[in-house]
């Protein structure tokens, strides 16, 4: 169930621009996976599964979103301008890369980080 949720969350993130989904929804779906891990393996199991502090995830997300915005500035357009480029990758087809996706990935990470922080801090086991 957890891998399925994670794959679904990434699907939501990627298709978000053209179909229902996006960073917020994708992030929440991934957060559902985080919640499941917590319910199944407990506090320690979730910490282990995340590898890093949840605050770090939030930080990376925010940085990513700002970086995506700054990209537009560097290229000479406005802050947060939507940039896109399409590549044709053999055997896969046309791959569309946009700065919007990077921005949305930042949103996704912030949401996951926030939920993980909440679960880890609020669901902390009582110190015995």
């Amino acid at each position, binding site marked *: 169930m957890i891998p399925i949720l994670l794959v679904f969350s990434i699907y*939501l993130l990627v298709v*978000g*621009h*053209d*179909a*229902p*989904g*996006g*960073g*917020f*929804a994708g992030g*929440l*779906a991934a*957060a*559902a996976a985080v*919640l499941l891990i917590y319910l199944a393996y407990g506090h320690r199991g979730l910490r282990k599964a995340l590898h890093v502090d*949840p*605050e770090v995830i*939030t*930080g990376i*997300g*925010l940085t990513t*979103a*700002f970086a995506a*915005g700054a990209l537009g500035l560097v290229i000479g357009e406005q*802050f*947060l301008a*939507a940039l*896109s480029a399409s590549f044709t990758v053999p055997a896969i087809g046309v791959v*569309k890369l*946009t700065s*919007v996706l990077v*921005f*949305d990935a*930042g*949103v996704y990470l*912030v*949401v996951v*980080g*926030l*939920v993980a*922080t*909440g*679960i*880890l*801090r*609020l*669901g*902390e086991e*009582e*110190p015995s």
Partner: protein
Amino acid sequence: MPLLISIATYFVAAALLGVAGVRLRKAAPAIALAPFVAQLITVGFLAAEPLPSSASLDWIPSLGVTVGIEIDSLSLLLTTVVAAIGLLIAIYTWGYMTDPRKRVRFLALMLLFSGGMAGIVASDQLFGLFIFWEITTIASFLLIGFDSEKAAARGAAVQAVLVTTAGGLTMLAGFVLLADVSRSTSIPEIVAAPPTGTATSVAIGLILLGAFTKSAQFPFHFWLPGAMAAPTPASAYLHSATMVKAGIVLLVLLAPGFSSEPIWLYAVTGVGLFTMMLGAWQAMRQHDLKLLLAHGTVSQLGFMVALIGLGAVGLTVAVLVAHAVFKAALFLVVGTIDNLEGTRDIRRLNGLGKSHRGLAAIGAACALSMAGAPPLLGFVSKEAAFDGLISNGDWLPLLVSALASALTVAYTARFWLGAFGGRSPDAGLARPTPAPWLLVLPPGLLAAASIIFGLFPEPLEGVISSAVDESIKLVLWPGFKPALAVSALVLAVGAGVYVWVARPGASMARLGVARFPDAQKAYRSTIQGLNHGADVVTAIVQNGSLPVYVAVILTTVFVVPAAVALTGFDAEFTWRLANNPVELALATAAIVSAIAATRARRRMAAVLLLGAVGYMVAGIYLSFGAPDLALTQLLIETFTVALFALVLAKLPRRFGAEPRSLSRPIRLAVAILAGAFVTAAALAATSVTPDRSVAEFYTNNAVEAGGRNVVNVILTDFRALDTLGEITVLAAAAIGIGALGLAGNARQRKEPKVGS
């Protein structure tokens, strides 16, 4: 452009040292010194080219913010002073600090500062200058608080940064106003055609405040002696030679256009003269050599400000250069003494002149320059200043500055005799060891400069005259003129004052009679008052009662928009029960759940019922064809319930007694009003025929923006800045949750747990 690049090298080198640090090993000194050398070479080449030339870099064109520099004789002269003294102090630092980590960190900060300073003296654009100005503020904060484990250093750093940033912001307001009335952001353009009127006077007043805070003028002078908590090389560079001169430089740049404003003449001259006296007076009372020099710096800055107030720009620059050279050297000498003897207190130092003749000689040359004795640069510049005051007939400023100069002679004598006088080395102090050459050479070279430019002031005279477009006279032997008599009188009176009160053995009580207002105390009580006020407000606003918070939020929700609505809203309410049976069923279920939630006895039941309301609403979204909204709503509801469940595990199962903070009728009234208002707003929103053009704009432009999901395109493109703001808030909330969790844990560990 070469100068702009050479300024940029400071920042590059600072970043390199800051990031790579001690891993650079042998390359570190080269990197630390390179920018200074590069800039001196650049200045050499530029001086040979026709002047003035300028270069600029558009930074934020939409706001008219340009980083621009103009290369003229003045900027080249000041750049030379900044880079040359910086180079010597960087070399000195290498001998002064022995811990490699600290040394590299210090030099990185110093380079950052130097870049800002080099930018200020070369800038010809208001906002570019402001940016460099603030860079020096930040770097100076980090340098004063360099010994961050000491509470005194941190306090002094905060004090300096609060005073100078407050001044910087005031100055920015002045810049904005000035740019607005003069329709230009270029300083030379503004000065060439200075605007007049009330707005200009206000702008100049604000800018003056900024300059006064930076240059430690009364009543902002107190941060400078406090800043002596910085390592001595930083004090030598920032708080004598460069940063405190930034305010002077700004005044020099603006003086040609605005020295005729009444506020300029009276405020600047008055403040300058008062500060000059205050600083000299305080300097005579110090036991710490470094503090003595700091108060002396305040006094000298006051002199420069007074000269600018009188419009004597050229003389100001002459005094500025002379002061930068001797004061930086004197600070370095104090640093060397501190390093050798472990103290800077003149009551403990004794006989250093016997054991360290070279250092004593260097100190003597610089001290004599400070006192204004021939044949040194300090004499030449002060003599010229007196001459200027006499020939202009500025009798009052002449009297005050002569008096302050006499006090300067007295504290100079106290400085040198306190540091180097006495017969034998104190038995309690370490055995005399020769000073390392790295700690003697830099002040020695600066002392040599004081002597050379004192004996041969002509080159400096030429440079300054062309820099400020007025001819000034810098000569070693002025002939028998009134100014010479003033100088001689000053030296004689100063010697008398020294013997009478400023001698280390003299009774301090004689000085204690005249107390100046204590600005330091005023600063402290302001900060305390601010903290106290914040405590009071927090106690009122954050009283810890959840019902009160909710009531405040809800009341705001309906009072503010309702006030707007009452003043003119004429939509007709049209309404129908439901579009289809599914909607009706969902809505009924939502209402029933909501009512049930208010009646629930168990906390968990209430949370689940609220979740049910959310699910029903998501269903309604879906029936309106908004899958994105419904998807997000469903996920959010799931999470809210799950997070509630985590918290509820720690709370009693059933609701407790009635909350006491708000009575039942009040809660009921707030709930009904909020509900009624939201209902009315929803009805109004659906009754108004919407302007289709907005929706059409979004749907038409979404594909062009690269997506077919309009909601998502709005979030990530049209309103991306909003989204960025929202996720920033989310991240802040995450940090808040983390902090709360940590605080809760700490409390749990401290107090034995009360039965759950």
